[in-house]
């Protein structure tokens, strides 16, 4: 049974010039589940970790209760569920249990009363402890963390918990509502544990985010996914990005000398996953050259498959013909352009945080231009607005930062 996954490798150029200098080459590694039919759904182990701080009162809490109710209605009886609520205190209102009595769970959700401050790490710790009780490699183990506020002095504790969750195989999907929360923290919680992240401007959209997460959990085709790329002598990987479902720079974790090694979490059968490797190639003689080999290993618990792997080779031609070497693959070009927009906005934020306003403005202007080239007018406009904010106040706005951080990371998800 070796045909569960399909790896497609596309190079930025099929041919490189025979020259005396080192050259850059990009490889897109696209991983999809084979067969577009419904995968056999794995049972879920779903933990809701919900902010009930005072600022959640009103419309946010009403919509949150409705969205949590949706989760309860759409999980099956084989699924496990737990609900943890937190402000500066934590309460487990539904301990990890099979979803037998939906009405009872919903009635307890209805009893949540907003109060107090926001201490995310305590809530996350308790929520993960509940999820761990029901943990199984045969389940899709996922935490849905929702907050509308800044957590105080426990960011490091939150990240440690996310790292641990990622290692154990529990993905944390983070959802922020409004503008007053720390997008860096929420994005990192998701990236470190292989979860998703959502920014919600209007409380009405909480339901949609929860629905997406339920559907995503029910579409998991493979778990424990990891990629190893072994490069040939003369080829050095220099950058690695996850590009689907969200763009993120995983270079620090994934680069290991000649090799690239990345844990990818679970594979959604609808979207798949994709990685972009940027490498440097030393001069080569004319002819076919093997850059390296990519190996994807995975489990498919629903089919009793464990530790299976598929491999694909990365090739380029070295040629004397300049015209042949000038051809660039449009798909990879587009992807690199999106990653470029993401990098420029990230650098703009870093420069602004360091107080380098001129450099931040320049990077953001460049990001805006790339975004316009990509046809992403709305995010480009957000970048232009932040340039004005930088000029006036020397800082980004809270809402603008979120729009850029989430907007550029999700460029590959655009419905086109």
């Amino acid at each position, binding site marked *: 049974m070796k045909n569960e996954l399909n790896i497609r490798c596309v190079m*930025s*150029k099929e041919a*490189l*010039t025979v*020259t005396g*200098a*080192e*050259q*850059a*080459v*990009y490889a897109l590694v696209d991983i999809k589940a084979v067969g577009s039919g419904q995968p056999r759904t794995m049972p879920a182990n779903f933990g809701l970790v919900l902010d009930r701080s005072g600022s959640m009162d009103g419309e946010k809490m009403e919509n949150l209760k409705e969205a949590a109710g949706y989760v309860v209605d759409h999980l099956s009886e084989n699924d496990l569920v737990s609900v943890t609520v937190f402000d500066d205190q934590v309460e487990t209102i539904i301990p990890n249990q099979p979803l037998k009595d939906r009405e009872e769970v919903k009635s307890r959700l209805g009893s949540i009363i907003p109060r107090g401050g926001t201490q995310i790490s305590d809530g996350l710790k308790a929520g993960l402890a509940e999820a761990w009780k029901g943990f199984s490699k045969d389940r899709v183990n996922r935490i849905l963390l929702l907050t509308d506020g800044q957590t105080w002095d426990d960011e490091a504790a939150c990240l440690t918990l996310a790292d641990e969750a990622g290692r154990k195989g529990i993905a944390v999907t983070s959802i922020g509502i409004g503008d007053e929360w720390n997008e860096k923290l929420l994005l990192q919680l998701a990236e470190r544990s292989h979860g998703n992240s959502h920014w919600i401007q209007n409380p009405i959209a909480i339901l949609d985010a929860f629905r997406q997460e339920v559907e995503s959990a029910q579409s998991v085709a493979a778990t424990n996914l990891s990629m190893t790329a072994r490069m040939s002598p003369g080829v050095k990987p220099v950058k690695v990005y996850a590009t689907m479902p969200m763009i993120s720079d995983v270079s620090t974790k994934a680069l290991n000398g000649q090799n690239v090694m990345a844990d990818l979490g679970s594979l959604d059968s609808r979207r798949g996953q994709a990685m972009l490797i940027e490498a*440097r*190639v030393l001069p080569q003689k004319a002819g076919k050259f093997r850059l390296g080999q990519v190996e994807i290993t995975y489990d498919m618990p629903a089919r009793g498959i464990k530790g299976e792997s598929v491999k694909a080779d990365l090739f380029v031609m070295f040629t004397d013909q300049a015209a042949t070497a*000038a051809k*660039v693959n449009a798909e*990879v*070009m587009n992807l*690199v*352009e999106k990653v*470029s*927009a993401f*990098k*420029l906005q990230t650098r703009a934020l870093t420069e602004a945080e360091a107080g380098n306003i001129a450099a931040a403005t*320049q990077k953001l*202007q*460049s*990001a*805006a*231009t*790339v975004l*316009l*080239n990509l*046809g992403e*007018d709305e995010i480009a406009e957000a970048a232009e607005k932040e340039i004005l904010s930088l000029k006036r106040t020397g800082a980004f706005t809270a809402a603008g930062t979120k729009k850029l951080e989430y907007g550029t990371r999700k460029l590959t998800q655009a419905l086109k």
Partner: protein
Amino acid sequence: MKCTECQTEYIEGALFCEECGAKIGTASQLTDAAGTTADKGTALVLASPGGGALDIPDKDEVVIGREDPVSEVFPDVDLTNLGGMENGVSRKHAVIHRSGTDYTVEDMGSTNGTYINKKRIQPHVPQAIKAGDEVRFGKLAFSLEAA
């Protein structure tokens, strides 16, 4: 090799400049054309990436935009049929001024801006343009080429 926009050094095979995000390769090819044609003082055309070229009429002020009979706007160069509407071209988007062999472009306060070589220009401030430059109205880009 250097980025034509910001002069940052880049390695062969790179697709975008790390510093300014400019496309590498296509941009440098365009610049090569510039040195030879601009010096000759030839008339310019707006070449669209999809092929085809729009003449810049031989007059002092050439209005670029989208035709709108209702508000009686009839630009000299009408971008309606090139997807001007979808690509954010304003009705009176920009004016190209021509003085002998010198050209400038002035943004007329358009909603989505005018760009020269990927840099947005100030509205109502004419900027010099020459063969080899990329000029973009909203999202619609052209390269300036010798006629």
